[in-house]
C-alpha cells in the first residue's frame, strides 16, 4: 500500500499558519541558491515551477508566499505519521520523497478485513491525527511498491482518494498509465515521449530486445514494470537509534567560524558516546534551530566509514559551505545515524594524531571525578573554558563554559 501526501511540506505550512490557507504558496529549496523546491497548484497554474529562481517565481505570481525550508519541522511531522502507520502495520518503509510512505498490508486481512476496508480503517486512523492530512492523502493498494505508487498517483484525482488494484487487475491497470510513472531515468522518459510512446500499453507492445537496443538495461526493466511482472515488496525499516548531541549557544551564532568550532565539539562528544562502541560513522545529520524560528539541516553519508574527527569535521564543513544556515543558529545538533565496522586502529603516527584538535580531553581520573561529582550533586560540577568568538566586541561572546564530559 502507498500512502502519499502530495505537497507534504506545503500542507504542513498551511497547517502551521491559517493565513496561508488561501494564498499561493511555494517552498524555498535548501542550499545557497535561492530556488523554488515545491509550489502549490495555484502557484503552478501561474507558471511557478520547482527549480525556478525565487525572484522569477515572484515575478510570475506577485501574491506568492515563499516559505523558508524547515526540515526539522517537516521531518518531525513525518515521524509522527510514520509512528501512527507503524501502529497499524509492522512493515512501514519511507521513500526518498518526504510525503510518500509504503505500508506492507500482506497478512493483515484477518485484522482489518479486505483491502477497501483496510483503506477506510487507515484513513480513519489518519483523520484522528489530523483531519487536514486525511483530506489530502491519496492511497493506493496494489501488489508491490511500484503498483501501489501508481495506484496512489491515480487516487489523487479519484473520488474517494483511494484506488485499489488486485493481483489480477494489475496488468490491465498499469497499461492505462502514462510512461511518466516508470522508475527510470528522466532521459529515457523524454525519449519515450519523443518516440510517441505515451502510455505503458504502447511500451508493452515493443519487444524486449528492441528496448534493450534502444535504452540499454533500462529498457527491459521498464518493460517488466509496465507488464506488472516485477513486484517489489515493502521492506520494514530498522528503527534508527541515532547518537544525538547538541549545543545551545548563549547568543545566536551567525559567524561560520563559531559554527565550525561548535561542530568540532559536537563531533568529539558524539564520538566519545559509549553507545558508539568503537564503530565507525557512515551517516551524519547536522541540524540547527534558527534564530526567529525555523530550522536547517544537512544529511550526509560519508564515502568511507570513519571515526576520525578531523575527517568528519572536514566533510561536514564542506557540506556547510554548500548549504549554509539562512539565519543565526540558536541550537546546533549532530546525529550519527548510520554506522560502519569498528575502526579503532590507531593512525600511523599514533592515537594522538587522530584526536580532535580543539577539545581538552581530561585525564581519566579527572573525568571519573567529574562523573562522581555530577552524580553526587545532581548537576555539573566541573567545566572547561571554550573559545567562542575571541575577537568579538561584546566581551560575553568571547568565551563560554561547557560541562566537562
Amino acid at each position, binding site marked *: 500500500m502507498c500512502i502519499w501526501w502530495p505537497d507534504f511540506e506545503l500542507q504542513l505550512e498551511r497547517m502551521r499558519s491559517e493565513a496561508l490557507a488561501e494564498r499561493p504558496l511555494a517552498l524555498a529549496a535548501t542550499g545557497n541558491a535561492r530556488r523554488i523546491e515545491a509550489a502549490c497548484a495555484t502557484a503552478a497554474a501561474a507558471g511557478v515551477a520547482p527549480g525556478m529562481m525565487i525572484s522569477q517565481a515572484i515575478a510570475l505570481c506577485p501574491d506568492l508566499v515563499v516559505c523558508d525550508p524547515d526540515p526539522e519541522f517537516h521531518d518531525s511531522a513525518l515521524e509522527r505519521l510514520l509512528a501512527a502507520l507503524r501502529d497499524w502495520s509492522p512493515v512501514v518503509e519511507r521513500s526518498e520523497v518526504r510525503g510518500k510512505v509504503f505500508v506492507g498490508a500482506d497478512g493483515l486481512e484477518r485484522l482489518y478485513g479486505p483491502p477497501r476496508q483496510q483503506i477506510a480503517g487507515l484513513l480513519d486512523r489518519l483523520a484522528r491525527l489530523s483531519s487536514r492530512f486525511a483530506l489530502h492523502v491519496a492511497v493506493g493498494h496494489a501488489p508491490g511498491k511500484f503498483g501501489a505508487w501508481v495506484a496512489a498517483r491515480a487516487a489523487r484525482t479519484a473520488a474517494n482518494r483511494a484506488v485499489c488494484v488486485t493481483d489480477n487487475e494489475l496488468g490491465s491497470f498499469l497499461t492505462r498509465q502514462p510512461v511518466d510513472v516508470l522508475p527510470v531515468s528522466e532521459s529515457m522518459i523524454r525519449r519515450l515521449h519523443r518516440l510517441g510512446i505515451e502510455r505503458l500499453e504502447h511500451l508493452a507492445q515493443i519487444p524486449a530486445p528492441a528496448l534493450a537496443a534502444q535504452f540499454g538495461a533500462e529498457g527491459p526493466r521498464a518493460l517488466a514494470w509496465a507488464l506488472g511482472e516485477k513486484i517489489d515488496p515493502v521492506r520494514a525499516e530498522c528503527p534508527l537509534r541515532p547518537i*544525538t548531541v*547538541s549545543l545551545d549557544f548563549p547568543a545566536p551564532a551567525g559567524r561560520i567560524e563559531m559554527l565550525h568550532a561548535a561542530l568540532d565539539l559536537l563531533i568529539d562528544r558524539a564520538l566519545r558516546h559509549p553507545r558508539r562502541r568503537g564503530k565507525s560513522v557512515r551517516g551524519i545529520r547536522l541540524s540547527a534551530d534558527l534564530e526567529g524560528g525555523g530550522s536547517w539541516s544537512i544529511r550526509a553519508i560519508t564515502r568511507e566509514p570513519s571515526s576520525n574527527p578531523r575527517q568528519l569535521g572536514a566533510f561536514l564543513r564542506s557540506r556547510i559551505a554548500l548549504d549554509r544556515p539562512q539565519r543565526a543558529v540558536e541550537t546546533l545538533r549532530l546525529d550519527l545515524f548510520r554506522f560502519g565496522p569498528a575502526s579503532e586502529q590507531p593512525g600511523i603516527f599514533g592515537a594522538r594524531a587522530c584526536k580532535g584538535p580543539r577539545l581538552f580531553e581530561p585525564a581519566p581520573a579527572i573525568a571519573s571525578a567529574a562523573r562522581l561529582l555530577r552524580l553526587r550533586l545532581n548537576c555539573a560540577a566541573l567545566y572547561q573554558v571554550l573559545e567562542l568568538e575571541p575577537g568579538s566586541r561584546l566581551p*560575553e561572546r568571547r568565551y563560554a563554559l561547557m560541562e566537562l564530559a
Partner: protein
Amino acid sequence: MTEPGPKRAVALPWTTSAGPAGRLPAAGKLRSLNRPRPVRVATTRGTEVPKSIEINDRRQRVEDVVERWRIDDEWWREPVSRLYFSLVLEDGAYVTVYRDLTQNRWYLQHA
C-alpha cells in the same frame, strides 16, 4: 511579494505536550563567561560620566575615568548599544562598567 514564513514551529494536532515539533531537549548548554552584572551607578549631573558606583552594597567614589568607548552592533537583530567606561575607584580598584543605551541601565563587566 515575498513574505517571511511563520516564525515559530507550532504544535501540530498530534504533537505531545513536551514542546513544539522538532525540538529536542538540549544535551549540552554553553554558559557564556563574563556576563554583564547589573550595577548601580550615579552620574555627574547633566553628563553620562559615572560619579560613584555601588559594588557589593558598598558605594565607592570614582577617582578617575581612564577610558571610554562606545559599541554599536547587531542592528540587524537586537541592536546592541553600549557606552563603556574604564574607571579607577577610590580604593584603587580598576573596574569597567557600561551603560546600555537601549535599556538605559548600567552593568559591570570585565572588558
